[in-house]
């Protein structure tokens, strides 16, 4: 055996790995011989032309590798044919291009719709003031997703923060998705005094809320005091087990959510905490807002289709187009004794 430089040994090892790009049968049949030839040529190139010759041969082999893996393998070859068919689709009508376009569309749709973003329409007014009935929005499903050990450094994952707007599965019926604002995180003490939130002993000044009912409701506005009959079973469970000194205390892996339209919002006050794992995502943009009643937006109806077709331009709220619902931090002030 002739001596081999470490650079050459390294090249040979890399080439050995690159052989895996060839189809299995081809690699089993010729892989060893190809490695042998590669090494022989490396040795001669280095002897006659030095490092430069070695590098030139390595580049030449890389180009050879690209073209021959495509030629030997049935799959990339089919892909190349496919691309050609799609390219030439404008000139000659091939049925294949029609099928392939739909395959690509469906794949993209499945991928994008289930993992990255999802479109929702808001049918109810519990976030009115921030998110309106008839807002169609895209929800980013990634930001609040559970971060993997590797992906956490690459993708913009973030944990929930107070003031964030989130979409989550309604704990009473996971077929529905709700959008609310995060008010309390695990460990937070929450109560309401005359419609104002007291969190951990500090009063919140919340610029994003709106109040539509001047009267006071004992339970809704002085939560968790007042008669419990408005709460659901889940809500009652919260009131039984998580109230300390007249305040609810958010347990681990849960959060307390309320709508910005405080007087008309079905939220954690009535049905309890939301499990962290029920979070779907974060609204990123309102791509279309159409003035329609709740009943039209909850299901599919011919009336709604007619309404949209006839009044698309007049009932679309153009000023809400491409609006970004923003997280907002409430200002905290000490409670005056």
């Amino acid at each position, binding site marked *: 055996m002739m001596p081999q430089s470490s650079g050459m040994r390294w090249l040979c090892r890399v080439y050995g790995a690159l052989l895996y790009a060839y189809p299995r049968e081809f690699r089993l049949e*010729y892989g060893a011989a*190809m490695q042998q030839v590669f090494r022989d*040529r490396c040795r001669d190139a280095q002897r006659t032309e030095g490092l430069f010759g070695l590098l030139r041969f390595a580049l030449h082999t890389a180009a050879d*590798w690209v073209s021959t893996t495509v030629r030997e393998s049935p799959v990339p070859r089919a892909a190349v044919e496919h691309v050609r068919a799609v390219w030439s689709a404008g000139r000659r009508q091939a049925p294949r291009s029609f099928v392939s376009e739909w395959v690509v569309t469906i794949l993209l749709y499945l991928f994008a719709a289930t993992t990255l973003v999802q479109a929702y329409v808001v049918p109810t007014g519990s976030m009115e003031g921030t998110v309106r009935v008839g807002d169609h929005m895209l929800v980013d499903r990634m930001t609040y997703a559970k971060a993997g050990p590797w992906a956490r450094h690459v993708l913009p994952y973030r944990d929930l923060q107070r003031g964030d707007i989130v979409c989550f599965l309604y704990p009473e019926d996971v077929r529905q998705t709700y959008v609310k604002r995060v008010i309390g995180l695990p460990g937070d003490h929450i109560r309401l005094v005359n419609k104002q939130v007291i969190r951990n002993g500090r009063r919140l000044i919340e610029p994003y809320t709106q109040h539509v009912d001047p009267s006071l409701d004992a339970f809704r506005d002085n939560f968790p005091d007042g008669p419990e009959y408005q709460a659901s079973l889940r809500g009652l469970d919260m009131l039984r087990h998580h109230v300390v000194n007249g305040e609810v205390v958010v347990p681990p892996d849960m959060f307390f959510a309320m709508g910005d339209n405080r007087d008309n919002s079905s939220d954690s006050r009535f049905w309890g905490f939301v499990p962290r794992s029920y979070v779907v995502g974060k609204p990123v943009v309102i791509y279309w807002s159409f003035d329609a009643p709740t009943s039209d937006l909850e299901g599919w109806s011919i009336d709604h289709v007619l309404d949209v077709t006839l009044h698309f331009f007049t009932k679309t709220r153009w000023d809400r187009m491409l609006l970004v619902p923003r997280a907002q931090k409430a200002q905290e002030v000490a409670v005056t004794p």
Partner: protein
Amino acid sequence: MSKRQSPQDLLPLTPPVFHILLALAEGERHGYGIMQDVARQTGDQLQLGPGTLYGCLKRMLAARLVEESGERPDPALDDERRRYYRMTDLGRQAARAEAQRLAAAVNAARSRRLFSKPGVAGGKA
């Protein structure tokens, strides 16, 4: 399994296939031997990469232009065993037919004054 295949059916041969056959015309060789010989024949114009070389050999084996002639070390290189290839009769006929085809093409080019002896081409009007 292509039975009773005529060499004419295989024409034109691609340059790598033709030059591999030329390399084997002198006798059996292993892969690296073919690679070196092709480079020498063409003045380094045609350098077969390992993928091209064995891709061609695979197709040439299937078309019965070449056959394997066993494994043994090449004393000039080292003591590793290498797979040797030799040309079949069909391979020889195909190479001959391709050479004739190319010769006819060269003659045609010459008769149209595209091809002259070196030194004559640009010299005289």
